[in-house]
C-alpha cells in the first residue's frame, strides 16, 4: 500500500463521507426517537397497521408490530432507508475511486510514478474500507445506543447483531458491485445515476417480488432478497451459508477488479 495515495484518497472522499455519514446518523437516531411517540400510541397504531393491505406491508418489509416492538420498528427502516443510503454511498465510492482517475485523466500522472497497478488498488481499497467501516460502525453504534435509550423493555442483542451483519454484507456487496462496474470502459461519463438505480432498483425488485407469486422471479436479481430484515420471523438468526456466499461474491468481485485493472489499457 502507498501511504501518500491512501491519505490523498481519504481527503478526496472526506466531503462525501461527511455528508452521507451525517444523513445516515441523523436518520438512524431521529427515526428511532420517533418511536417514543409511536410507543405511546401503541395499540391504536397496531390496529391501523392491521388494516393496511398485506402486499404493502410485505413489500416494505414492515412488521405488524413495528409500533410496539422497537427492533421490529428499527429493522423496517434499517432494511429500507439505511440500506439504500449506505448502499448508494458504497456503490458510488467504489465505482468512482478508481475510475475517477481515468475520467479526470489523472491516471497518466499517477501511473507514471513508480507504483504498480496492484498497489494503486490496494491503497484505494484501503481508503474505501476505512471510510465505509467508519460509516458502518458509527451507524451500528448510534442505532444500538438509541434503541437502548428508547426501549423500555430489554431487547434481544442477538437480533440486533444479525440485522447489523446482514446490513454490512449488503452494503459491502453494493460497494463491490460499484468497483466491478467501474471497470466497464466508458469515456468521460459520470455513472452516478445508473449506480443509484442499481441500489434502489434492487430494493424495488425485492419489494415487488414479495407482493405476489407472479413477480417472485424478481427476487433472484436483487441482493436485497438474499438477506432478511424481518425480525418477526420465528428463529430469526444469522444463516452461515448466506454469510459465506455473500463474502465469497464480495471477494470474487474484488479479485475481478485486480485482475482486470492489471490488464487494461488506460484511457486518460
Amino acid at each position, binding site marked *: 500500500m*502507498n501511504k501518500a495515495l491512501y491519505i490523498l484518497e481519504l481527503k478526496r472522499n472526506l466531503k462525501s463521507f461527511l455528508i452521507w455519514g451525517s444523513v445516515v446518523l441523523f436518520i438512524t437516531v431521529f427515526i428511532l426517537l420517533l418511536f417514543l411517540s409511536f410507543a405511546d400510541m401503541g395499540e391504536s397504531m397496531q390496529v391501523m397497521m392491521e388494516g393496511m393491505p398485506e402486499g404493502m406491508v410485505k413489500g416494505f418489509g414492515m412488521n405488524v408490530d413495528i409500533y410496539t416492538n422497537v427492533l421490529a420498528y428499527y429493522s423496517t427502516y434499517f432494511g429500507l432507508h439505511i440500506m439504500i443510503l449506505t448502499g448508494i454511498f458504497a456503490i458510488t465510492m467504489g465505482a468512482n475511486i478508481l475510475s475517477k482517475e481515468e475520467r*479526470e485523466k489523472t*491516471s*497518466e500522472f499517477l*501511473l507514471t*510514478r*513508480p*507504483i504498480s497497478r496492484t*498497489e494503486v488498488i490496494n491503497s484505494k481499497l484501503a481508503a474505501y474500507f476505512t471510510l465505509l467501516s467508519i460509516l458502518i460502525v458509527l451507524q451500528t453504534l448510534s442505532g444500538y445506543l438509541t434503541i437502548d435509550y428508547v426501549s423500555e423493555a430489554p431487547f434481544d442483542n442477538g437480533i440486533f447483531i444479525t440485522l447489523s451483519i446482514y446490513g454490512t454484507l449488503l452494503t459491502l456487496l453494493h460497494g463491490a458491485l460499484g468497483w466491478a462496474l467501474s471497470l466497464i470502459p466508458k469515456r468521460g461519463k459520470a455513472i452516478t445515476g445508473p449506480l443509484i438505480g442499481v441500489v434502489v432498483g434492487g430494493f424495488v425488485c425485492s419489494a415487488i417480488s414479495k407482493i405476489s407469486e407472479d413477480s417472485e422471479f424478481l427476487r433472484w436479481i436483487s441482493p436485497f432478497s438474499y438477506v432478511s430484515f424481518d425480525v418477526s420471523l420465528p428463529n430469526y438468526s444469522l444463516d452461515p451459508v448466506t454469510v459465506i456466499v455473500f463474502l465469497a461474491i464480495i471477494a470474487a468481485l474484488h479479485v475481478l477488479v485486480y485482475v482486470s485493472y492489471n490488464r487494461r*489499457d488506460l484511457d486518460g
Partner: protein
Amino acid sequence: MDIITTEKLTKFYGSERGIEGVSINVKQGDIFGFIGPNGAGKSTTIRTLLNLIFPSSGTSQIFGKDTVTESAEIKKKIGYLPSEVNYYDNMSVEDLLNFSATFFPNTDNKYRKELCERFALDTTREVNELSLGNRKKVAIVQSLMHRPELLIMDEPTSGLDPLMQTEFHQVLKEANKDGTTLFFSSHILGDVQKICNRVSIIRNGVIEANEDIDSLLARQLKKVSLVLNDDAKEEQFAKEEISKLNLLHQRVSFTYSDSPNELLRFIAQLEVKDLTIEEPTLEDIFMHYYE
C-alpha cells in the same frame, strides 16, 4: 549502454492501428528526438513504454528491464512530461509536488526550488487555476526534480512561450550534461534540430527512418521564395536540387535540397529584389525524402 530498446513494438486498438513494428534504440546520454505528424503514433509509443497501455505484440525494454512486467521498477528512475497536463483538483502546486515527491525518495529539494524559480512558478497557486503554460511548467518541475536517468517528453514545448522554451531547452541541456538521457517527441522539426543528436521519424504508425541529426541536417531542405527584378524564366531554375517550382512573373518559389552554401551561390547569380528562406515543414521533408 542502451536505455530504451523496442523490438517490433505493435499496438492495435481493436482493428485500428496505433503503431506497427516500431523498433527504436536510445543510448545513454542521447538526446533522442521522436518526430512525426500528429496522429503518427508518437503518444501511443510513449504510452506503451510507460505501460499505460499494453502492446499487442513486440517487446520493449528500459534500462534492460521489461516495460510490462517491471514497469514500477523502471519508473523509479524515469521522469515523464506529458503533452496534456492533468492534475488532481483542489491541490496547490506545492501539494502536488510534495505528493509526487513521496514516490521518489531521491527528490532533490534544492534543485526543485531552483527549477520553480527559473520557470517563475508560484507554488502557492491552486493547480486547477493555472493556465496551460503554467501547468506545463509544473509538469516540467515534477518530471525533473528527482533527477531521473531518463526523461520522456511528449510534445514538451506546447503551451510554453518562446522565452520559457529557451529556458526549458537550457534546463534540458544541463540535465543531459548531468547524465539524464532525453527522449523527446515532437511534430516540430525545429525543436528537434535545436537540441537532439539522434532522431527517429514515425509516420502512420511506422518508423520511416532512424538517423543522426547530422545526417538529417546534411540533407537539408529549404523553402525559398524570391522576387526578381525581371520576369522569371523556367530554364533559370532547371536544376536537380530544385523541386516544387512555382513561377508567376517576377515571383518564384521552390524547394531546395542542397547545402546552404550552394543555395546562396545560386541565388547570387540572380537579380533579387526580395528573398525569404524558410524551414520546411515536416510534411515537406516526408514528401521529399520518404515517398
